[in-house]
């Protein structure tokens, strides 16, 4: 489902060349990409999401050869096959939470099917967010925003879910709660958590550690 082999990336022509370790992740598997600040975690995440293009190596995610695909193919693929939980929850501020959650469907399919609305209702219910469906993003607490962000990443049933530092600012109790939600709601998807949080090592035995390898 996720395959990374011999991937190298360089920002511009003057930037340092970054090399990433090889790894793969099978369908439905959970894995951790662990690394301290400056090890290229965010860069690797953006490579895995097709937001950056690697200069060399093999990058296959959810059936897509990311180096061979066109920008247009990647745009549609991201909306259909991927779910991304960002470190800081981003929302379209003019839309309500339920409209934000439905946005990936609108952008990829041009409409929001009724079954998605039903799924959204039950998901928000499970996350204790049903009463906030009509709220605007700025009206939500940080915790509510994070749960809404998880719901948006999973609502369209992506094949692969990437979570960027989902527990970075949380205490042990809340970190465990968020990861429980992610595990539960993304049960059918491949889950890749990108983090520096050592607390998650015990939770996911499949762990790849990123080291600074720049030239």
């Amino acid at each position: 489902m996720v395959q990374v082999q011999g991937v190298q990336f360089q920002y511009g022509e003057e930037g340092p060349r970054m090399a990433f370790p090889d790894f793969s992740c099978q369908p439905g598997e959970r894995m951790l990409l662990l690394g301290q600040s400056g090890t290229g975690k965010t860069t690797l995440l953006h490579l895995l999401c097709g937001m950056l293009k690697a200069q060399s190596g093999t990058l296959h995610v959810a059936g897509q050869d990311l180096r061979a695909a066109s920008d247009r193919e990647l745009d549609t693929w991201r909306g259909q096959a991927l779910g991304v939980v960002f470190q800081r929850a981003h929302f379209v501020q003019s839309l309500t939470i339920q409209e934000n959650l439905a946005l990936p469907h609108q952008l990829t399919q041009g409409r929001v099917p009724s079954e998605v609305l039903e799924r959204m209702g039950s998901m928000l219910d499970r996350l204790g967010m049903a009463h906030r469906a009509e709220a605007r993003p700025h009206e939500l607490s940080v915790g509510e925003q994070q749960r809404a962000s998880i719901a948006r990443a999973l609502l369209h049933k992506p094949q692969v879910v990437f979570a960027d530092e989902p527990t970075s600012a949380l205490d042990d109790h809340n970190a465990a709660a968020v990861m429980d939600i992610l595990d539960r709601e993304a049960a059918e998807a491949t889950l890749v958590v990108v983090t520096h949080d050592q607390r998650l090592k015990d939770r996911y035995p499949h762990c790849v550690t990123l080291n600074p390898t720049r030239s």
Partner: protein
Amino acid sequence: MKLSLPYQAWRNLRAKPLQTALSLALLGFGVGMVSLMLLTEKQVNDAFERNIKDIDLVLGAKGSPLQLILANVYHIDAPTGNINQRAAEKVLKHPYIDSGIPLAYGDNHEGYRIVGTEHSYVEHYDATLAEGQLWDAPYEVTAGARVAENLGLNIGDTFFSAHGLKDQTDIHTNKTFTVVGILEPSGSVVDQLLLTPMESIWYVHMEDGEVLDPETREITAMLLKKRNPLAVLTIPNTLRDTNMQVALPAIEVNRMTQQFGLGTSALRAIAMLIMALSFASIFISVLDNIRARRHELALMRTMGGTPATLYRLLLLEGGLLSVAGTVLGLVLSRVGMTVLSQVVEAQFHYDVAAMGMLGSEWALAGAAILVGLLASAIPARRSLRLDISRTLSEA
């Protein structure tokens, strides 16, 4: 669930009410001013042309030629004075003159002029009777459609005339006018007049027992139709030693509209400037949106939005502003036209309230929307080059 791009664009505009209101107000005022000027020019020109209708020359007392035209063709100014009827009839018999319509006036009823004339005046403007008949005997009146409507006049109604063209202070209570007919609306000046025989005007100003001398009878003006184009050059020479003059309506109106033109050009320039400011406002608004919402736009790219989708969204925001601003402008110009028509009607008894869309207004609306779209299309191009990775990393 409604989540189409136009809906999203609408929500984005609503999320910034002040910025949206400013752009709308600027474009609305700019389009409104230009539209109002186009409407006013059209209405005024139509009214002038309708009322000139085959009147080649106006014979009247010496004074301002423009005043002579405004007073006797349009009935919106005081006459330059009176002329002798016998002298005027001599001019009418000149071989270069085909026909003439005499006018005598100086009194009013509730601000509407009572004009002594002949039936040919009604025929000249193709006015027809709605009810009753044309005047026949002295003090019989046939009312124009607008006068009858505004004063609620019916056949058989009577009234006294007041001296002057507007005042209601010096009322001739010794002579009673009777309405014998009401005209259909003709869109010409007769709609605003109370028409009566010439004798009514003469008799109402005579003392009891006074006898009217045919040699000294006066009229206010005579509307002349020429038989020979040389009349325009010849007739003024024949009047050199009299107290009369002839004025050419087409030339005087043309001169007046040219003078108006200077004012309207300045107003149009101001309106264009406001419109230009509104387009700059839309440009800045879209540019500012791209800067302020770059994280949202990058987020939409991670959720399946293509650069073209984002471009269309931003273009729609500018397009919605342009369309709404243009519609607002056209509505404002109609409101302005309604107010203006009430003022004009109160002042001059003219109806200038036609509200249909002019061809030039369609062109104005099309141009405003097109330029508004362009003003948003240029900054929106930035969304096509959005670096998703860098933008999300900045957050």
